[in-house]
């Protein structure tokens, strides 16, 4: 059984597409959009902002990561950042922004699709990108184990945690192992 979403580290925008408003307290803002659909979302977000804003439209997550780094280096407190795009892009972008010192209140996240997830294998640490969902099962690209997607998303890595599922033996013992793996994984993340 999965706990209610609010009690987990999985934000609502990671489950269904969403478009947050811009914080009215902002004194400057930047929208980083990955993909054409995200540009629409970012434009709406900027239109609702009271402060001067900038839009960066990018084709890939890597390009967007570089833009986030450059913006973080220049930004002053009062600034707000929107990252918009597919879930597989916005999670790593959020992780980068948080690592750069942003707090949650300074960061908006908009998802255009949540169909694909990035899943870190608790056993071999490989990251699998696949169409799945929390509670779904994906084969690990690294070790081929069948991974159950846990309702835990790392703020630091921007990926979901997956650990081996054995349909026959599924029970509290497995659950216990999963919990332990989560902690170990977070420590090392």
């Amino acid at each position: 059984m999965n706990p209610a979403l609010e009690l987990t580290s999985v934000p609502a925008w990671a489950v269904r597409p969403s478009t947050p408003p811009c914080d009215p307290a902002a004194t400057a803002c930047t929208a980083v959009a990955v993909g054409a659909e995200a540009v629409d979302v970012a434009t709406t977000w900027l239109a609702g902002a009271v402060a001067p804003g900038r839009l960066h439209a990018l084709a890939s997550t890597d390009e967007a990561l570089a833009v986030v780094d450059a913006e973080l280096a220049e930004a002053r407190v009062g600034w707000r950042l929107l990252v918009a795009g597919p879930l597989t892009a916005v999670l790593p972008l959020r992780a980068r922004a948080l690592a750069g010192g942003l707090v949650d209140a300074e960061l908006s996240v908009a998802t255009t699709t949540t169909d694909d997830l990035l899943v870190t294998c608790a056993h071999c640490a490989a990251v699998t990108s696949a169409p799945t969902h929390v509670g779904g099962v994906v084969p690990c690209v690294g070790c081929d184990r069948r991974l159950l997607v846990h309702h835990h998303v790392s703020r630091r890595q921007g990926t979901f945690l997956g650990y081996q599922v054995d349909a026959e033996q599924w029970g509290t013992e497995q659950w216990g192992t999963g919990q332990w793996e989560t902690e170990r994984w977070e420590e090392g993340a």
Partner: protein
Amino acid sequence: MSTSLSLVVAAVDDTVPGVRSVRLVRPDGGTLPGFTPGSHVLVTCGPPGTSAVANAYSLTGDSVAPRAYTISVLRLDAGRGGSRWVHALATGDRVEVTSPRSAFPPVLAARRHLLVAGGIGVTPILSHLRSAVRWGRDVEVLYAHRPGAAAHLEDLRDLAGDALTCLTDRTALGDHLERRLADQPVGTHLYTCGPAGFMDTVTLAARRLGWPDERIHVEHFGVDDLDPGESFEAVLRASGRTVPVPSGTSLLDALEGAGLSVPNLCRQGVCGECRVRVAAGTPLHRDLVLSDAEKAAADTLLCCVSRAADDRLELDL
């Protein structure tokens, strides 16, 4: 309960008019417990063993393996007598203090620290500055004080150098504050300590300039000028007695007046000793001890400052 330390006055310094710095050491000269920068101790302002006021004073000295605790106390003639007692201390006198308490720690992950002190509020700011300098953290200090009356000005100058700006008039302070708050790299945390009105000015300016609350840290000196509050009734669970608490009388005073003894130390909402369990009714929290979560739980309150949100409160007493 807090551990208490029995210390002796090693030196007093009255260089700055109205402000006395006191150096407290262990009678055997040993090392004292280290503390988190921005910590305070509660000083029992009277001879040990008597029921005297306890005031919270920030520690201004080195926080790592300290040989002494130093505090600086502004003399308040209209106060409850705590500061006057400190101002009458002499070398060799015994002083009871609690072990250090941390309620204003630096955020270690911060990219930069902006420290804003008003008057005697410089004391925890000095402690933050010492640790920032010791660990090579990026720091900037604004110090607002009256012309001529500036506690620890030399210490700040030595530690901060060019990173210190002193401001002695209101307009200059407002302008400078706006300018500096608007130009801090993202990842900066703001720390302010001073009179309540001063801290309000600083936090309002920061919020207006888009600073999220997570980046704003304030240190109160105790709850100054609480309003007298509405009258209410306290019902004591154990005996079924009802104790009236008039406006202007604290719940603690009312309970003591009714013959109950409730542990207490500071009587100003900073120590946490006077916590009592609430059995029914909604507390109106006015202390600086309970976390937001503890306040929301509404099952305890600090009876020296907090009251009832409605006209009745049932206590587990």
